[in-house]
């Protein structure tokens, strides 16, 4: 009794010391703090069209030639219009281009640009702005990564220019007149329209860029907008504010007056800020999902990003197709997404994600048409594994598994190890390494099993399937199939103008890749769990480029 009294006293003392310490700043801050809270919740309602968001990192660059990450593409997409934009269903809708004509062989596009589009400094947006921007992106002096990546093999001569073998002016893009842009492609590219919505293809105002020089895109006032919003403030590391661009050609359809963005890195902090009304949306990590799952603010955002196990076929064991099939079958994917990920991610059963592309005629989803190419079935796994062991003449096998070093990745990899070791005589050694190390070992093909992932760069099955071509720059599995190469190459050349036949090739190729040749063991298609205030309306989710479209977003019922 006496002892507990003493403890209580000490605790009280500690608390009072502590409160005394902070009382200095108490008055001013609590007053302001509660004041702004009231404004937020009680407020003027829908007259105030302000969206408050958070991003997990600062914008690395607002220079569209140099951008490589989602945050940059998000805010480039919100402040700039390319030839086309992506609409609610990820189809191309007019941006700076009103429409276009395509030559019969599909290699020449002539875009007719609108005449009322202006930069935020008053200059008109012209065909020259696109020519300059695209040339700059592939110019080796620029040092762009995404320029060559997006344009090589698509825009005529891009590859030769990027490697310094040809003059920049030879790039297949010309301004016929102020409002007519002609683009020459290497070959017919059926997904070219959606590609023009991507950040790397955004126009640049040459005069402005050159006038700003090294300072270009470094600060809010060193940026030009030709899109729905323009930068008002950019405090590096802390956040930024974009406001409605009154000079935008479609300004009448933009309802938000302002978007406030703060950099918030910690999930728990994001949730706290969301609950205190500071931000309107926040991402949730799996440990928060159960707490908020039943909330009306809870959402699952599906993404077309796939995760899978790469199996190096240059190794003895994994060169055996039965061994690879055993690994495909052995993993219980439903258990994995339910227990380990717990964020709405779905089991993946192929190598083209669900809800990503639909058939040109029937409109059916690719995944629906090709079905579950890889299923989870322990019995079949064991059968294949037995066969593999006989063929290899081995009783026990050890495989190294290269995984990520984040907490989620470690849990996931432990689960996969556990699942795979259900196969008799197989032991899996998990090696958790940083991303950079995994990449290096992937390039050198110095691995056996590897957890890898891929997100799309344009809306076409090709972005997932051309990876596994024999000479594919990112293949690194040792997979070399003439038949597979033929299907994919044919789809991109002879059949480029025949959407349905092309589609058939992709379906067959995927089946060959996953079912017959068992090149990869699919794991899951990623989803993101998040909280969003119910008064946020009209935000579209995009499968590539900018994650969200805010052009048509508005606040209602706040």
């Amino acid at each position, binding site marked *: 009794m006496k002892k507990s009294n*003493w403890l209580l*006293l*000490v605790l009280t*003392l*500690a608390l009072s*010391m*502590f409160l005394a*310490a*902070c009382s200095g*700043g*108490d008055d*001013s*801050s*609590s007053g*302001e*703090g509660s004041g702004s*809270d009231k404004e937020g919740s009680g407020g003027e309602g829908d007259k105030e069209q302000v969206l408050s968001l958070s991003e997990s990192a*600062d914008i*690395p*660059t607002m*220079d569209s030639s*140099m951008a*490589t990450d989602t945050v940059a593409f998000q805010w480039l997409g919100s402040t700039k219009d390319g030839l086309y934009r992506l609409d609610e269903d990820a189809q191309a809708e007019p941006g700076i281009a009103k429409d276009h004509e395509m030559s019969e062989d599909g290699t020449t596009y002539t875009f007719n640009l609108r005449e009322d589009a202006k930069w935020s400094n008053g200059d008109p947006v012209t065909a020259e702005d696109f020519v300059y921007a695209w040339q700059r992106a592939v110019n*080796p002096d*620029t*040092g762009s*990564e*995404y320029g*060559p*990546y997006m344009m090589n093999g698509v825009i005529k001569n891009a590859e030769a220019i*990027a*490697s310094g073998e040809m003059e920049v002016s030879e790039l297949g893009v010309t301004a016929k007149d102020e409002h007519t842009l002609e683009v020459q492609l290497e070959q017919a590219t059926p997904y070219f329209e959606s590609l023009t919505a991507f950040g790397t293809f955004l126009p640049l105002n040459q005069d402005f860029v050159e006038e700003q020089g*090294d300072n270009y895109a*470094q600060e809010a006032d060193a940026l030009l907008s030709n899109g729905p919003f323009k930068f008002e403030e950019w*405090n*590096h*590391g*802390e*956040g930024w504010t974009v406001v409605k661009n009154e000079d935008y050609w479609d300004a009448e359809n933009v309802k938000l007056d302002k978007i406030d963005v*703060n950099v*918030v*890195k*910690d999930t*728990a*902090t994001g949730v*706290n*800020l969301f*609950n*205190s009304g*500071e931000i309107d949306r926040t991402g949730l990590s799996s440990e928060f999902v159960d707490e908020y799952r039943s909330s009306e603010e809870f959402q699952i955002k599906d993404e077309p990003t796939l995760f899978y196990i790469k199996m190096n076929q240059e190794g003895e064991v994994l060169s055996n197709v039965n061994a690879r099939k055993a690994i495909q079958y052995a993993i219980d994917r439903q258990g994995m997404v339910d227990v380990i990920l717990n964020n709405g991610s779905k089991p993946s059963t192929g190598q083209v994600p669900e809800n990503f592309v639909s058939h040109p005629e029937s409109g059916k989803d690719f995944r629906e048409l090709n079905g579950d190419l890889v299923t989870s079935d322990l019995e079949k796994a064991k059968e294949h594994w037995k066969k593999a062991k006989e063929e290899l003449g081995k009783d026990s096998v050890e495989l190294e598994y290269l995984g990520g070093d984040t907490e989620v990745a470690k849990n996931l990899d432990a689960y996969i190890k556990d699942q795979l070791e259900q196969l008799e005589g197989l032991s899996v050694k998990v090696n958790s390494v*940083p*991303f*950079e*190390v995994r*990449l*290096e070992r*992937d390039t050198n093909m110095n691995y056996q099993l590897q957890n890898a992932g891929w997100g799309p*760069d344009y809306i076409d099955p090709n972005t997932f399937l051309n990876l596994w071509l024999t000479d594919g*720059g*990112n293949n690194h599995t040792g997979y070399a199939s003439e038949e597979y190469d033929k299907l994919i190459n044919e789809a991109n050349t002879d059949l480029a103008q025949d959407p349905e036949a092309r589609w058939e090739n992709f379906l067959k190729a995927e089946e060959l890749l996953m079912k017959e040749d068992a090149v990869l063991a699919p794991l899951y298609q990623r989803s993101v769990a998040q909280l969003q205030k119910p008064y946020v309306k009209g935000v579209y989710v995009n499968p590539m480029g900018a994650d969200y479209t805010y052009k048509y977003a508005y606040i209602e019922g706040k």
Partner: protein
Amino acid sequence: MVRYILERLVYMLITLLLIATLTFFLMKLLPGTPLSAADKLSEEQQAIVLEKYGLNDPLPVQYFNYITGLFQGDLGLSFQFDNREVTTILLERMGPSMTLGAQSLILGTIIGVLLGLLAAIYHNGVVDYGSTFIAVIGKSIPSFVFAGILQFYLGVRWGLFPVALWEGWEYTILPTLALAIFPIAIAARYMRTEMLEVLGSDFITTARAKGVNKFGVVFKHGLRNALIPIITIMGPLAVSLMTGTLVIENIFSVPGIGEQFVKSINTNDYPIIMGTTLFFSFLFILIILIIDLLYGLIDPRIRLTEGD
């Protein structure tokens, strides 16, 4: 004195150069490249981009170029924040970290020293136990736990202070408190031990015998003598507080340097790694110099020029 300081400054430069050299070569041992889309580019494409930044040159050439730039005050351009000057980034990010570091150091030291003093004066009393309790808590609870508790109760639940973000002075209160708990604990512990020792010495007994009252003795004679070890620890602590802490910065969304430093290592942003390391080293060496000078001020028995 002036000669002593000049001498120290020369050593400082040599130390910095050594640090720059070591860091440069160690950093190049990190796997990977500064490219952000390395997983999408072929090796040939990567080589073309790296060429532009001079990263295909032999290492000694790169080193020479960097050191030459350094002597001209050029820390180079960042990779992850495309073409942004390292100096600009350091200046932007140091502000918040320094503010929090300085505030928490001052607050922490004052409270810690007071607690330690009280504990020594009321030795073995309730105040002593209370102060020891706080010191133990402060030292053993990780700052991020404390930060989380502060954020939830003072921020979300009671709405007294802003939850997080960085939009004015009131936004510094919670992170400052979270950071201050450690210096409080350290200062209180050392102060108590030192003070007890000093209070037990003969000259204090003499002073008391001459009729100086208890508090007079403590503040006039005791404090000065007990401060030496505190200053010794507080120096390095000051640097570590002012150079930012990843965890606290992330929890309170502070745009500080700590987070930036870690990220630059993860993304192989060589110029930022170099710039930040050199800046931190400079701060550290500077603080050590200041502390050495302070010793002489506080305790005249320590003479700087004696060695000459």
